C-alpha cells in the first residue's frame, strides 16, 4: 500500500490561497522533495502533512488511514517523525536525554512520577545516536553543540518514534555545504535501510538533485510538475517558474550527484 497519499489539499489564509488541489503520493523508502520559489506554499503543504495546519479541503492518508484531522502527537504515534527548519531540540537537556525523552514519549511514559527519566532507555538512545554519529557526544549539553550536530541529534529524535514517514522541513538550512551532503547521505542510508519514506522541502538544488528520487515543483500553491530530477531540470515550465534564476537548476559543477 502507498505509504503517504495526499489528496486534493487546499488551504487559504484570508484571501491568499497557499495551496490549491495538491495531490501526490510517497512510497516506502522513497526520497521525495518539494521545491518551488519563495511563497510557493511548500511550508503550508508540509505543515498540513505534519499536523501543524488543518487543510480547508482534501485529505492526508498514511498507510490508507485518514489522518487529515489528527494532532501532531497522534501522527507521531502513527509513525510520522519530523525535523524542523530551525532545529528544535530540548536545549536544557543532554544529547542522550533528548533522545530518551522521545523514546519516553513514544512509549507513553511521560506522566510517570517516580523513577528518573535519565535512566530510562539510555542504551536505546545511545544506539540511535550511534546511527547518526553522535554517540560520542551523548552526555554533552545539547546547548553546547554546533548547529550541524544539533541537526543530527534532531534526526535521532525523529527516528526514536520508529517512523514510517520522515518529514524534513529544509533539513540543511543553515548548514555548511559539506555538512549538507553528509546529513542527506546519512538520511538516505537510514531511510533506505529501514524503508522509511522521506518527504523534504529544500532550497538547495544540490541537495535536491543529489538526493531526491522524485521532485514536486510547487508554484503559487499548485503542483507545476512532478518527476525524476533530470526531467524536472529539463522541464521548460519549471525553468520559466525559476525565471531569472535559471542557474539554480543547473547541474552543479565539481560535485557529482549520487
Amino acid at each position, binding site marked *: 500500500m502507498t505509504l503517504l497519499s495526499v489528496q486534493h489539499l487546499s488551504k487559504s489564509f484570508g484571501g491568499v490561497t497557499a495551496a490549491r488541489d495538491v495531490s501526490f503520493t510517497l512510497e516506502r523508502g522513497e526520497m521525495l522533495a518539494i521545491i518551488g520559489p519563495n511563497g510557493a506554499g511548500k511550508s503550508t503543504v508540509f505543515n498540513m502533512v505534519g499536523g501543524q495546519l488543518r487543510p480547508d479541503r482534501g485529505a492526508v492518508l498514511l498507510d490508507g488511514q485518514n489522518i487529515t484531522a489528527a494532532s501532531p502527537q497522534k501522527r507521531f504515534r502513527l509513525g510520522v*517523525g519530523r525535523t*524542523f527548519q530551525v532545529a528544535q*531540540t530540548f536545549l536544557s537537556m543532554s544529547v542522550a536525554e533528548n533522545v530518551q525523552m522521545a523514546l519516553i*514519549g*513514544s512509549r507513553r511514559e511521560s506522566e510517570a*512520577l*517516580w523513577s528518573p527519566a535519565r535512566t530510562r532507555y539510555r542504551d536505546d538512545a545511545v544506539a540511535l545516536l550511534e546511527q547518526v554519529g553522535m554517540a560520542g557526544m551523548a552526555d554533552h549539553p545539547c546547548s553546547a553543540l554546533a548547529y550541524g550536530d544539533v541537526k543530527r541529534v534532531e534526526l535521532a529524535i525523529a527516528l526514536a518514534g520508529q517512523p514510517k514517514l520522515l518529514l524534513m522541513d529544509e533539513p540543511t538550512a543553515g548548514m555548511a555545504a559539506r555538512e549538507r551532503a553528509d546529513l542527506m547521505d546519512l538520511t538516505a542510508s537510514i531511510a533506505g535501510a529501514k524503508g522509511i519514506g522521506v518527504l523534504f522541502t529544500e532550497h538547495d538544488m544540490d541537495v535536491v538533485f543529489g538526493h531526491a528520487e522524485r521532485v514536486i515543483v510547487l508554484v503559487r500553491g499548485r503542483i507545476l510538475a512532478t518527476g525524476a530530477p533530470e526531467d524536472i531540470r529539463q522541464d521548460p515550465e519549471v525553468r520559466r517558474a525559476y525565471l531569472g534564476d535559471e542557474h539554480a537548476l543547473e547541474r552543479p559543477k565539481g560535485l557529482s550527484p549520487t
Partner: protein
Amino acid sequence: MDLSFLAIQALNGLSSASSLFITACGLTLVFGVTRIVNFAHGSLYMIGAYTAATLVPRLLELSFGPVTFWAGILASAIVVGLIGVLIEVLLLRRIYGAPELFQLLATFGVVLVVQDVTILIFGPEDILGPRAPGLRAPVEIFGRRFPSYELVLIAAGPVVLGLVWLLLRKTRFGVLVRAATQDREMIAALGVNQALLFTGTLFLGAFLAGLGGALQIPRVSAHAGMDLSIIAEAFVVTVVGGMGSVPGAFLAALVIGQLQAFGILIFPKSTLVVVFLLMAIVLAVRPYGFFGRPEVIGGAHAVGIASRERSPFATLAVIAVIGILAALPLIGDAYVLKVATEILIFALFAFSLQILIGVGGLVSFGHAAFFGLGAYGAALAVKWLAFPMETALPAGLLLAALGAALIGAFVVRLSGIYLAMMTLAAAQIVFAVAFQWVDVTGGDNGIVGVWPSTWASGPTTYYFFTLALTAAVIVLLMRIIDAPLGYALRAARDSTARAEAIGLYIRRHRWLAFTISGAAAGLAGGIYAFSRGSVDPTLLGIPTSVDALTMLLIGGIQTVTGPLVGAGVLHVLRDQIMPLTSLWRLVLGLSIIAIVLVFPRGIVGTIRNWREERT
C-alpha cells in the same frame, strides 16, 4: 427596581469604566511598546491621587476656580509622568531583555518601594481631596440625584480615547508607538531611537495613570492600598481587551464598568468575583483577549532548571541536611523552633512553585491561591466539620488540589504573560471569596481556633511533625522533577513544537503539574494554619504570591535547591530587619530590584557558577 434606578446604575458603570480606561490605557500602551507588564502602574495611579489631593487644595487657596482645579489635576499627572520617566531610565531600561518573571518581580519591587515612600512623604493618613469647583451640586436624572462630577468623568474616558487616538494616528511619536507594538525588532532595525521612544511611552503611560488617580480625588480619598486594587482591575481590563490594544482596553473597561454596576444587584458581595470570572471566561474563549494578537507575547523567555551531572554526594547531602534539621531542637529554644517551622513551611511552598516556574517555565503569579486554599480548607474543616488536625490537613490539601486542577484547566491553554495574569486573576477570585463570604470564612477576620491535635501541639513536636511532612513531600517533588513528568515539562518549556512532535500532550502535562504543585502548596498552607492557630485573607493575597516568587529569586530560579535556601534567607532577613525599621517594604523592594539587576542567578546559582568557573 425601576427604570430610573437602572439608568443611574448604568451611569455609575460608565463613570467607573472611564476611570478604569484612563489608567488601563497607560498600562496597555506601555506593554505594547516595551513588552513589560508594569506592576508599578497602580503605584503611579496612587501617586497621582496623593499628589493631586495635596497639590490641588494649595492651588485652590491661591486662586479658587475650575481652571485652577483642572490645572492642578493636569500638573499632578505630569509629575507622575516624570516619575514614570525616572522608573524607565533607572530600572526598566535595564530589564527589557530579561525573562518575564524578572520584569514582573522588579516592577513589583517598585510597588513595595512606592508604598513606603508614599507613607514617608504624605503620611499614613488618608487624604481627602477637594471637590471640583462648579461641579458640587448634583444634577437630576430621571428624578434621581446624580453627582455632576461623575458626568465629567463619563466624558473624560472618550475624550482621552480620542486624544490618544489622535496622538497615535497623527504624530510621528504615535506612528512609532504603533510600529513598536507590532514589531519591536523591526523598529530597532530601522534605526529608530529606541531609548527616546521607550522613555516617551513611559511618560505617556505614567501620565495616564497619574491622571486616572488624580481624577479620583473628589470621589475617594487618597489611601494606601489603592495601588494593588487598581492594578488588579487594570490588569483585567488590558488582558480582556488584548494586551497592547487601546480600543480593546476601552471596550473591556465599558464591559467591566457595567458588570460591576449591575453585578452589585445580583451578587451584592461578589463584584470582584464577577470581574475576574469575566476575565477567566474571555481568556478561555479568546486566549489573547478581544483585540490582542498572539505575536504580542514576549516569546521564549523561559529560563529554568537544566540537566547537570549528578553529584555523587547529592543523596548524602539531603540526608545530612535533614539530620541537622532534626537535631535543631537540641540547641534551639521555642522561638527558634517556631521560626524554623515557618521556614520549613515556606520552603515547601516555594518549592511547590519551582515545579511550575523552574521546571515548566510557567510563571504562576497566583500561587498564594493554593497555599491559602490549603490553609482555609483545613481551617474550615476544623470550624464547620469539627475535623481533628489529622483529617483537616488532608482536607486542605484536597481543596487546594481541586482548586489547582480547576484553575489549571483554564490556564494551561495560555502562555507567558497571559498565564501570569490569569493565575493572578484566579488568586484574586479566591481572595475575593475568602474576603467577601463573611458568613463562612469570617471575612477580614478569618478563622481562629485552628489548633493542632494535643499530641502535636508542643513547639518541638510540631516542628518534628512539620519537618517530617515537608521533607517527605520535598523529596517526592524532587523525584517528580527528575522523573519523566518533570522532563516532559522541561521539554515543553524548551520547545513546544518538538514536544508535540514526540507525542507529548503539553496541556495535560501542565495541568497535572498545576494539580501536584497546588496540592503541595495546599499542604504547606494547612501546616501553616495549624502552626498559627488561625487563617485570614492575607494568606491568599498578592504579597504572599510575591513572597514565594522572591524566595525563588533569592535562591535561584535555575536550581533545584534554590527555593529552599531562598525561603530560609528571606524569612531570617525579615525576622531580623522588620523589628528594626518600619520601612521593611522599602528594604524588600530595593532588594528584589537589586537581585534582578545584579544577581539574577540567585544565591545557589551564583555559588554554582562560581564553583564551575573555578574548575
